[in-house]
């Protein structure tokens, strides 16, 4: 189930290795995660849940949901979606709660290495990359950390071309934007990049912000900066329906990771829930990967994403069922069917309108919400703003939160687009450099230009909605962020 030919992407696989799942040899390639290799071999069920013994498999594919835990070489609770395969690795299904190995040496105390910079940027997606580039250009020494092995965030999974203006990469594919921005980062000696590094906490340490990081899940690192840009992106929403935990039900992002990052076909026949931009784009990407998309269901009475994305998948024969929802998934150990129904005026399913789709995969594209965990933990004031996708940090016009010196940008500031994420990243990066006292005031002009570009981008009907939300999250001007 590996994709060999793709109209847009090329997959360069590493050395072929053998891993063992429940004792059975499985072919894998270096650079793949365990979950991807198992999926390519047709394995969907990775564990049975601890309390109700329900089959569980992959869901988020980015190490967040913990639905994919397995035992690796005897060690339980390993997140298979972010752990790379190694030749000879023994992988076993996790059965409830596991025992610990008995003979282990205690670890020795070790001081974590501490890296210092003017600005620390957390998150290497469009917002974080732009923040790092502009902070560096404005004169700051920058540390950029990201959880994934490759910079680019969600851009690396996007085969479609971006909207906006050409100076904002309009007409360029997401994967290509990721490559360009990554190159720009690499060109700058002032930026130190740490990939495969998760930020697990933000603390105030004297005058500095201390970011505690963990690299490759095994190494503790400390990053100290005068200021901080949090650009941690978004998380997919889940919706309640019967058997919504059945293996084969994936978040849209997980499907993109499977097929566009690792070249693994997510399934043969798929139903997509949600006709926002993510669902529509996903449908198109699935067709590009050679997967049959049975339908897109959407609870709203109309397509939520851009019309042009809808037209693109419609003319390839994919039905969009507006005013429909998924009632349940069926299947013993994995998805075999999806049952959908039409909705009435009160959002209740209309009896008798049920339709059954024979699918092996269900994609959930029911919206994103900002990843604000670090901001929340750091003490930034948080507010629920529906228009921005959920809870967000309050911030001023330069993206500074209520914690002085902590800036936010991109989807973690409110769900929008990669284009606006890049502009916000630019603003936050320059503002963070200014606040750190390393940038000359002439950079204020660049902030103003980015603010103007944002305003222009948001001037249409889609942007109006976002602007409503931003108003609710915006702190009154005249804080002391004008340093």
């Amino acid at each position, binding site marked *: 189930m590996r994709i060999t030919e793709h109209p847009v992407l090329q997959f360069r696989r590493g050395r072929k290795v053998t891993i063992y799942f429940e004792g059975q040899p499985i072919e894998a390639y270096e650079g793949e995660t365990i979950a991807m290799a198992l999926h390519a071999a047709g394995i969907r069920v990775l564990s049975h849940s*601890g309390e109700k013994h329900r089959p569980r498999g992959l869901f988020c594919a980015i190490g967040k949901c913990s639905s994919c835990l397995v035992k690796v070489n005897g*060690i*339980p*609770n390993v997140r298979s979606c972010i752990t790379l395969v190694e030749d000879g690795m023994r992988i076993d299904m996790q059965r409830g*709660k*596991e*025992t*610990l*190995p*008995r003979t*282990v*040496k*205690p*670890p020795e*105390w070790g001081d974590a290495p501490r890296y210092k910079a003017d600005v620390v940027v957390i998150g290497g997606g469009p917002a974080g990359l732009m923040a790092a580039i502009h902070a560096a250009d404005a004169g700051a020494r920058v540390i950029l950390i990201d959880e994934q092995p490759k910079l680019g965030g969600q851009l690396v999974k996007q085969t479609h071309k971006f909207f906006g203006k050409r100076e904002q990469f309009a007409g360029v594919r997401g994967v290509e934007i990721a490559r360009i921005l990554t190159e720009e980062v690499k060109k700058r000696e002032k930026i130190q990049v740490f990939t495969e590094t998760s930020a697990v*906490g933000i*603390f105030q340490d004297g005058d500095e912000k*201390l970011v*505690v990081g963990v690299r490759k899940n095994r190494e503790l690192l400390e990053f100290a900066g005068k200021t901080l840009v949090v650009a941690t992106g978004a998380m997919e929403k889940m919706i309640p329906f019967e058997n919504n935990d059945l293996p084969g039900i994936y978040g849209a992002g997980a499907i993109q990771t499977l097929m566009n990052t690792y070249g693994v076909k997510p399934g043969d026949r798929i139903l997509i829930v949600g006709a926002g931009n993510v669902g529509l784009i996903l449908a198109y990407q699935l067709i590009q990967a050679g997967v049959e998309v049975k339908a897109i269901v959407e609870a709203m009475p109309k397509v939520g994403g851009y019309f042009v994305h809808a037209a693109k998948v419609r003319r390839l024969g994919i039905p969009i069922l507006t005013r429909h929802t998924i009632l349940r998934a069926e299947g013993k150990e994995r998805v075999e069917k999806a049952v959908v129904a039409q909705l009435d005026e009160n959002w209740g399913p209309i009896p008798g309108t049920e339709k059954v789709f024979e699918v092996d995969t269900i994609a959930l594209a029911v919206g994103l919400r900002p990843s604000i965990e670090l901001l929340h933990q750091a*003490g930034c004031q948080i507010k629920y703003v529906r228009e921005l996708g959920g809870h967000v940090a309050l911030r001023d016009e330069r993206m500074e939160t209520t914690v002085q010196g902590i800036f936010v940008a991109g989807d973690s500031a409110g769900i929008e687009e990669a284009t606006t994420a890049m502009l916000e990243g630019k603003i936050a990066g320059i503002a963070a450099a200014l606040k750190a006292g390393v940038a000359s005031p002439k950079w204020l002009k660049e902030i103003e230009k980015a603010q103007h570009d944002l305003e222009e981008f948001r001037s249409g009907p889609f942007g109006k909605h976002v602007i409503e939300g931003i108003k609710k999250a915006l702190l009154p001007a005249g804080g002391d962020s004008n340093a």
Partner: protein
Amino acid sequence: MPTRELPKKSEITIIGGGIVGVTIAHELAKRGEEVTVIEKRFIGSGSTFRCGTGIRQQFNDEANVQVMKRSVELWKKYSEEYGFPFQQTGYLFLLYDDDEVETFKRNIAIQNKFGVPTRLITPEEAKEIVPLLDISEVVAASWNPTDGKASPFHSTAKFALHAEEFGAKLVEYTEVKDFIIENGEIKGLKTSRGTIKTGIVVNATNAWAKLTNAMAGIRTKIPIEPYKHQAVITQPIKKGSVKPMVISFRYGHAYLTQTAHGGIIGGVGYEEGPTYDLNPTYEFLREVSYYFTKIIPALRELLILRTWAGYYAKTPDSNPAIGKIEELSDYYIAAGFSGHGFMMAPAVAEMVADLITKGRTDLPAWWYDPYRFERGELRGKALQMG
């Protein structure tokens, strides 16, 4: 089910719906008294639901040993009657040198005197009890199999439920704002939901006790200060992996055990205060990891899921202040538990109910005399974990 309706009057009103306030209400109601608990948020939400779950009799003074012996009897009795989990899985103190062993021998003698069956065991015996232990540096252990642990959520909920069955009123989401006092007599309390007439008030607000005392205009010096005490919980592992509460003074005053759900829970002696700040810290995260893995090396592969903080409401001698404050009639305090409130609660409830209803108690309440601070008669420091 606790209510949000404030009664017009109540003979006795307890401020604070933690385990201490709830068990006092339970005991008083059981004795037929009219009693109301007023809780700012929900039952147990202050420090009770943040506690480390342990219940031990291994103290180093006669009073605490006696009180805890009674408390364990009550924990056992009520867990059986009310059906909440209380397990006598023991407390295991790991000892690493002769000085420690000598100290614990003295403690064990006191405990044995009152019938608490603590004994000194060998490192190998300790490893039989917790096979995951690293005993390479351990020279002996103090082991009492009758100590135990209980779920703070389920036990407090059951005490609350039965207190109500006996007629107690538990009022949640209601904050006491002021005392109504006339000629040194309590007439009532002003709350965020109106006024309640009451004659007897028990301050069971532990970490907030000094604020409550101030509200009552108490001038007696009762130094109770909130300290941030942090705890950690890991991903669950197979049940029975760490049955008793394991203590190591050598390694950071650490205590750890396994919850009913399977996670390893515990803390270390890293403490900050006085403060009302409850933000967990990096220092704690590192220290707890280091000390826990020193005690049980296999924990190094285990994921920490969460940290949180609660208050140790500390007094200078780590013993609580329990008793009547004479400058105001009728005002009682049961606070300053210094990390022992959960384990002591059922016995404290009996003690306070005795004092209110009979004016005397068979339990050694004198040890906790709230006036001892003012008189400069501090007790021997109670053996405090974490």
